[in-house]
C-alpha cells in the first residue's frame, strides 16, 4: 500500500482535494479490506476456540436470541454460532489465499524477469513453460494435486502457490522486456552493473504497480479457488471453519436455514470485492501517473 501513498504525494497535479489515495475504488477497497484484517486480528487475539463448539439444543436457529444466548448470524446444523464460525474461517481462507499469493507472486516475478533478461534457450524454455501451464484450468490441477499430497493448510497453500505463477510470469515478462529496452538500463549495462542489480534495482521498481495489481487480483482468485476446493470437500479438513466448508454444509439446509448459506457467501463476496477494488484502484492510479508523466 506504500505505493498508493506515494501516488498521493506525487499526484499533486490535480487540483481537486482528495481523501485517501486519490482513487475512490482503492479507498473503498482498502477500507473493506482493513476491516477484514481487523476482524482477523480480533479473532486471533480475543475469541477462544471454545466459541466454535456447538450446542445441539439450538440447531438451525435464525439470527437473534436463543436459549443459548445471542447469535448474530444464527446457528448451523450442529448448533454452532455462525458469527464465530465465519470469524474462525478468516485464518483459513485469508491465510491460505494470502500465503499462496506471496508464493506465486515471488516465483512469477523471478521467472518473468529471468525470461525477459536472457535471449537464448532460457527464454524459450520459460515462454514454453508459461504458455503450457497458463492454459490449463487451475482448479483441475489443484484438485489432482490435493488428492495426491493430501488436505490441510500447508498442502493447499503450496499447491495453489505453485500452480498459478505462470499468470504473473507472463505479465512480468512482457513488462520487463519493455523496461529492459529503455536507455537507463542500457546506461546501467554500460556502467557494468551486474545482471541481478539491473533486474532488481532498476527494473523491479518499474513493474511494482503491476505486481501489486496482479497480486490483489490473484489473492481474490486464490480465495475463490480455496473456497471451491473446500466446497467440493477436497480442501480444508471437514471440521475446519473454512468458508467453503460452511457453504458446502449449507447445501442440505437451503430450505430450513438459508442464513447458513448467506453468511459465508457474504464473507467470500466482500473479501473478493474488496481485493478487486484494490486491484482496479492501483491500476487506475498507475495509469494516471503514467499519463501525468507523458503530459
Amino acid at each position, binding site marked *: 500500500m506504500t505505493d498508493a501513498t506515494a501516488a498521493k504525494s506525487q499526484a499533486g497535479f490535480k487540483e481537486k482535494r482528495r481523501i485517501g489515495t486519490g482513487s475512490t475504488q482503492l479507498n473503498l477497497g482498502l477500507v473493506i479490506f482493513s476491516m477484514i484484517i481487523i476482524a482477523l486480528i480480533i479473532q486471533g487475539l480475543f475469541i477462544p476456540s471454545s466459541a466454535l463448539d456447538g450446542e445441539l439444543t439450538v440447531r438451525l436457529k435464525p439470527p437473534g436470541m436463543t436459549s443459548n444466548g445471542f447469535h448474530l448470524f444464527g446457528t448451523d446444523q450442529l448448533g454452532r454460532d455462525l458469527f464465530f464460525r465465519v470469524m474462525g474461517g478468516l485464518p483459513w481462507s485469508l491465510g491460505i489465499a494470502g500465503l499462496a499469493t506471496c508464493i506465486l507472486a515471488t516465483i512469477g516475478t523471478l521467472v518473468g524477469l529471468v525470461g525477459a533478461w536472457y535471449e537464448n534457450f532460457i527464454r524459450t524454455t520459460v515462454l514454453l513453460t508459461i504458455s503450457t501451464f497458463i*492454459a*490449463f484450468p487451475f482448479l483441475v490441477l489443484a484438485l489432482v494435486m490435493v488428492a495426491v499430497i493430501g488436505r490441510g493448510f500447508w498442502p493447499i497453500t503450496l499447491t495453489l502457490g505453485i500452480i498459478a505463477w505462470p499468470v504473473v510470469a507472463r505479465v512480468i515478462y512482457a513488462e520487463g522486456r519493455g523496461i529492459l529496452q529503455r536507455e537507463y538500463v542500457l546506461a546501467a549495462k554500460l556502467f557494468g552493473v551486474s545482471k541481478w542489480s539491473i533486474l532488481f534495482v532498476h527494473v523491479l521498481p518499474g513493474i511494482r504497480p503491476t505486481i501489486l495489481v496482479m497480486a490483489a487480483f490473484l489473492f481474490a482468485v486464490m480465495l475463490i479457488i480455496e*473456497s471451491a476446493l473446500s*466446497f*467440493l470437500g477436497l480442501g480444508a479438513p471437514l471440521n475446519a471453519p473454512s468458508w467453503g466448508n460452511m457453504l458446502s454444509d449449507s*447445501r442440505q439446509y437451503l430450505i430450513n436455514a438459508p442464513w447458513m*448459506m448467506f453468511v459465508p457467501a457474504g464473507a467470500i*463476496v466482500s473479501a473478493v470485492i474488496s481485493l*478487486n477494488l484494490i486491484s482496479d484502484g492501483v491500476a487506475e492510479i498507475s*495509469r494516471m501517473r503514467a499519463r501525468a508523466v507523458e503530459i
Partner: protein
Amino acid sequence: MTDVTKGPDGAAETAVEAQPAVSGGARGDEETVPIALNVARTLGRRLLELLVLLIGISTLLFFLLRLTGDPAAVLAGETGDQEQLELIRKQYGMDKPLIVQYGVFLSQVVVLDFGRSLANAQDALGLVFERLPTSFTLVIIAFTANLAFSIPLGAWLGSRPDRQTRKLVATGVFIAQGIPGYITGLVLIQIFAVELRWLPSIGNQGPASWIMPALTLASFQAPHVIRVISANVSEAMREDFIRTARANGAGFNTLLWRHALKNAMLGATALIGTQVAFLLSGSIITEVIFAWPGLGRLLVTSVQTLDFPVVQAAVFCIAIFVFIAITATDIVFLFIDPRLRRQRA
C-alpha cells in the same frame, strides 16, 4: 504500461502475442509468408505445449503418488492383509524398480491406456467418454448464452461510458465479478427451486433442468467478458477511423456495431481462448452443485475415492480439449487479423 483494465490475463496475452508483429516492423505491404505456414507454425507450437503438459502432469502424478503413499495399500483397501498386498504388487508390476514402473507407465499413457477404474473395473477412458456429451451440452449452452448476453451489453456499456445509467450498470457488473459461481448457483437454487419451485435443481432431465446450471456456468465468466469488451469498445470509439467514419456520415449505431465492436472483438482474442479453461473449471463446480452427470462430477468423485486411472484419463481429456480450443481460436484469428501473422520466415 499495459492496459490493466483488461484484467491481468487478457492484457498479458495481448502483450505477448502482439510482440512478434510489432518487433517485425512489417506493415503488410512487404512480401508476406503464406498463411499456411503460419497455421502450421501455430499447430506445431501448440502440439509441443500439449506434449510437455501431458508428460509433465503424468510424471508429476506418478512420482507424487509413489512418494506420498503406497498405491497397493489404496487398492487393497482397509481390509487388505500382507498377502493381498504382495499379490496386488505383483499383479500391477509394483514389485519392480521405480524407474521400470515409470517406463511401463509412460508407454501405456502414450497409447492412451490408463487402465481400469479401481471402483468398478470399467475402462477408465471409456468412463470419461461416456460423460463427455452431457458436459458438452452444458458448456456449449453456457458459452453461447454468455457471448449472446455479454457482447451486446459490453458494447452498450463501452459506447458511452460516462452516462449515469451505464455507470450504474458497470458497478453492478463489477460486483457480479466478485461473486463466485458456486454462490450464484446456490442462490439460484434458493430462489427458483426452493422458494418458487419453478425449476428442478438436480440432474439432467430435459431443457428445464438446463437453465440453472447454464446460468451458473455463464455467471463465472460473463462479468469478465463484459468488462473487457466494454473497455475495448470505449477505446476503439476514440480511434481515428471512427472519427473518419463519423465524418463520412455514419450513424451512431453503425459506428458502434459495425466499426468499433469489430475492432474490440479482435482485442478480445486472447480472452475468448482462455475462457475455455475457465469454462471447464467452472463446469466442475457447477456439475457438483446441480448433480449434473458430466465429466467434472466424475473427476471430483474419482478424486474423492482416489480412483487414479479415471482421474488421469479425465485430466488428459480436459487438457486435450483446452488445447484444441486454444489452437482453434489461434488459427481463426490468424485468418481474421493479419497483424498476428509473422512476416519473417
